[in-house]
């Protein structure tokens, strides 16, 4: 699980004195990370056949690439986008998948770098609440308006008590004389 170094940005603060030691440690970690990154060396093109150890990995890869947004061509997922960035993201998703990362870990990796925006299905949280609730909100608004209209019509129907002369006048209009 050396690859976990990749998952989170380095958290340590550096004091000037400790810099050399941390630098050495960082270099070792990076070297290991570099070895992992080296696996499929080039970006993955669209529809390129890929090998997986298990069927579950294949499924995870193809689910993930359809759920991640290509951040430079924002209406496309990385599954369908021809942008170079999407190809790199596919490569990273593939690597992490065959290294045994779970679906959530891959999504977390991407959101750490590109924000929630990278998810085609945004999570339900405070700043996306309106996005999720608005269809239901509109339904409620529409429902209330509809009820109002219906009620008003019923009232109008109920209040149609005309006097005798008015009714006769109405009859005349209807006949058209």
């Amino acid at each position, binding site marked *: 699980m050396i690859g976990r170094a990749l998952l989170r*940005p*380095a958290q340590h*603060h550096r004091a000037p004195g400790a*810099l050399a030691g941390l630098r050495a440690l960082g270099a070792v*970690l990076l070297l290991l990370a570099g070895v992992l990154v080296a696996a499929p060396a080039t*970006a993955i093109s669209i529809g390129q056949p890929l090998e997986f150890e298990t069927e579950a990995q294949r499924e995870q890869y193809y689910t993930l690439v359809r759920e991640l947004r290509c*951040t430079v061509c924002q209406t496309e997922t990385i599954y369908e986008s021809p942008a170079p*960035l999407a190809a*790199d993201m596919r490569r990273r998703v593939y690597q992490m998948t065959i290294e045994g990362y779970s679906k959530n870990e891959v999504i977390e990796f991407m959101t*750490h770098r590109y924000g929630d925006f990278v998810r085609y299905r945004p999570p339900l949280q405070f700043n996306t609440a309106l996005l999720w609730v608005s269809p239901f909100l509109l339904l409620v608004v529409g429902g209330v308006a509809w009820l109002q209209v219906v009620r008003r019509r019923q009232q109008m129907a109920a209040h149609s008590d005309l006097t005798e002369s008015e009714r006769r006048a109405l009859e005349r209009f209807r006949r058209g004389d």
Partner: protein
Amino acid sequence: MSKRIVIPLALALGVLGLLYVGLQMEDGGLPSPLVGKPAPPFELESLHDPEERLTEADFIGQVAIVNVWASWCDSCRLEHQHWRALAQRGTPIYSFNYRDRREQALRYLEVFGDPFEKIAFDPQADAGLEWGVYATPETYVLDAEGIIRYKHIGPVDARVIQEKILPLIEELEAGQS
């Protein structure tokens, strides 16, 4: 005025108001979740010397700018003058040369000048993904501890330099001493 007119009018004005505010909001609102986080780890060759390895530790130590550029990127040329000016001021400017060919990148620097202290060569966008790069040019401001304090997507202009980057650098440098 009756309720029948006032309510829809108020609603319509409300929606128009929201749209208006949306239009006024600063563009380029792509989220940058890395602001406030430490500079992500990487290890790459130096552009000038393939033997020299650069890591994020090479970019950390002072208040600094990290720019992402490429020789094929037209808007990088537009902002290049600002890096020359800032370098003269004494602020270290590091950079990633992104998805480029080494000889073309070196030629670009020959023609337009080289204001960069250190340049990491990132032809496969490995560090680019770690740093959440969308497309060139992008610019980060690091504090002396290597925390990303600001990110600008797209070319910087005189206004961004004067209103955002310079004040931030001055503030960070003042806090340092």
